[in-house]
């Protein structure tokens, strides 16, 4: 199909009025699809980065205190779990 310049006509206004709904609909749908993905990803990423920062702080605290005692557990799993809040799940 070749692109032919639009010709002016009396029905232009009606066509425009009708077309605007489809054009707006198409752009809004695409925006909604991409925005949904971005929001989901942003929420996950923010939560993970906060968790990572907490864990890094805990590691630094432990390293500053001289490392883990032999045979012992420097931090209870529950304390580390608080940094992550949720059990492991990738993806």
């Amino acid at each position, binding site marked *: *199909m*070749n*692109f*032919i*310049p*639009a*010709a002016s006509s009396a029905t*232009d206004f009606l*066509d*425009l009025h*009708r*077309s*605007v709904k*489809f*054009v707006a*609909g*198409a*752009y809004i*749908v*695409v925006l909604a*699809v*991409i925005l949904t*993905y*971005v929001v989901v*990803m*942003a929420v*996950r*990423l923010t939560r*993970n*980065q906060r*968790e*990572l920062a907490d*864990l*890094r702080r*805990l*590691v630094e605290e*432990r390293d500053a205190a001289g490392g883990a005692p032999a045979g012992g*557990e*420097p*931090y*209870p*799993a529950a304390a*580390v779990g608080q*940094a*992550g809040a949720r*059990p*492991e*799940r*990738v*993806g």
Partner: protein
Amino acid sequence: MSTHARHLRALSIATGVTITAGLALAFFYAPEDASGYIQKIFYIHVPLAIVSLSGYVLGGAFGAMYLWTGRRIWDVRSYCAIHMSLIFSVGGLLAGSIWAKGAWGHWWVWDEPTLVSYLIVILLFCTYQPLRFAIEDPERQARYAAVFSVVGGAFVPLNFLAVRLSTEYVHPRVLNLEGGNLPPRMALAFYVMLVGIALLFATLMKYEMLAKETRRETRRLRRRLVGEDAVAPLRRTAAPM
């Protein structure tokens, strides 16, 4: 700072600027064609379709690199490229469907090769995630997914070629070997939008890779803090580990 996070801000700004410029050109600079104002949908629908199909091929190339090198990063790249392509495909498909309703009076036509072949590609890649999810062992999962992505990625250009060679079609052709049939002002808006959508793809893919990397690092640190046994085992997942 991670490798993925390093250029993310600049990439995000470039994406925003390019898409804004592309939309401005599409709506205020490019002329309308005979089909009228509804043709403006073309500036979002076609770039989404092209970028998503290219993304599948890219995913296949990354899959091939994983098979070649065995490095996990290629599996993550392949996964993210295909994941992003699926999202872009859904956007492109919906935008195309709305255009079809406005221009042809139907949301979908089954006797149109371009539409049906695009749907087949999407459905093919919709099975990528279930395939990964079905395989528990991460190495096998990555290997099988890489093989799938290579075969699927090779199918995309073959499919495209087959549709181009078919004689009966009503879907408008934007690009051809002679450089397309767009007037210069429309072509400028189209190519700027195409670059913008490609940048959006790259930005979102990088975001997803950053999320995967953060998750992996979190798990590594947690193991270091409380030991291997105290960390809950991973639930079965389709995402690379």
